């Protein structure tokens, strides 16, 4: 739908796999940070006087 590849990621982690969770979370954070701020699906808040 026009989202950059890599911004959306999927993983299957059991509640027993805490180390895998940490690793994946770190990898995803790093990958998304490399893509820069998201510009899509963002709705500017209405201007309030």
């Amino acid at each position: 739908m026009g989202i950059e590849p890599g911004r959306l990621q999927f993983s299957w982690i059991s509640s027993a796999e805490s180390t895998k969770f940490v690793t994946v979370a770190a990898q995803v954070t790093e990958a998304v940070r490399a893509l820069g701020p998201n510009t899509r699906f963002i709705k500017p808040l209405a201007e309030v006087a």
Partner: protein
Amino acid sequence: MTSTTEILRETAARLLASGAVEMVIGFRQGTIPMMNEPCFVRKPAEAGLLVWDSHCGINLANYVTDRKEKKIGIVAKGCDSRNLVTHILENKIRREQLVVIGVPCRGMADKRKIAMKCPGEILRVHETETAITAEGEGFTRTFEKADVLQHNCSLCTHRNPVIHDELAGEPVEEQQGVDRYADVRAVEAMSPEQRWKYFEDLLAPCIRCYACRNACPLCYCPTCFVDESRPQWVGKGQDPVDVRTFHFLRAYHCAGRCTDCGACERACPVGINMRLFTKKLEKDCLELFGWEAGLSLEVRPALDHYRPNDPNDFIR
């Protein structure tokens, strides 16, 4: 009047008179040309209201959701019958409640295509096996039916009803060698930026009237996510982000269930081809799971079933 109409009237009158059904859901002549409307016939004497021509595009499966009658006769084209199967699998109606009057279908006419090619308002329409003639003030135009079919009908590979108890006419030959997904592949080939822009343009005219949702036999939730206000999942205005969220989410709710009956696109007052979204999901379902919705009462749907060989390359 076509012979299918006669068979339908005869069948409906017979089923109602014998008490085999409490009502028959079919089509009657609309108040304006090319807009036949659904009709619930409850008395044999009213069976003469029923008609059948190239303007019976509405998906009648939409009208049996959660009905309480013990026996309902329903007129069903190929796509309607597939949606009836989906309804039965999703417990929205029981098979025993239905007497399906199948109609082998040669495709429905796209009223916009015909209207675009006529110089004025169309006042009368009549048709033969292969041609449709539209008449208005000072003009008469005849079209080859094949040229004015709805896009989804021209790509249809399931014209004959998949379930039926009665059949109004001989089965028709199914179209062979149809390339169903050329338009989806074209979008898939775009870069993310192009695709974002493409969908922005596609959805720009949307007025959020929800006609697509209301016409869709799959959209039977008592309260649709767009109508919820606590929590409010999606904004209710014309903001492009909200419009996009509505269309994408609606499409995903139809994943593995959509039969590409074209009800959404036909109902759209501004002519948005939102079938592009549901078709992408349909294509994925077919390629990844070998699944086409509504073909059998015996097989569980792709998203309702686990197989050890399900593809999962996207999970890491």
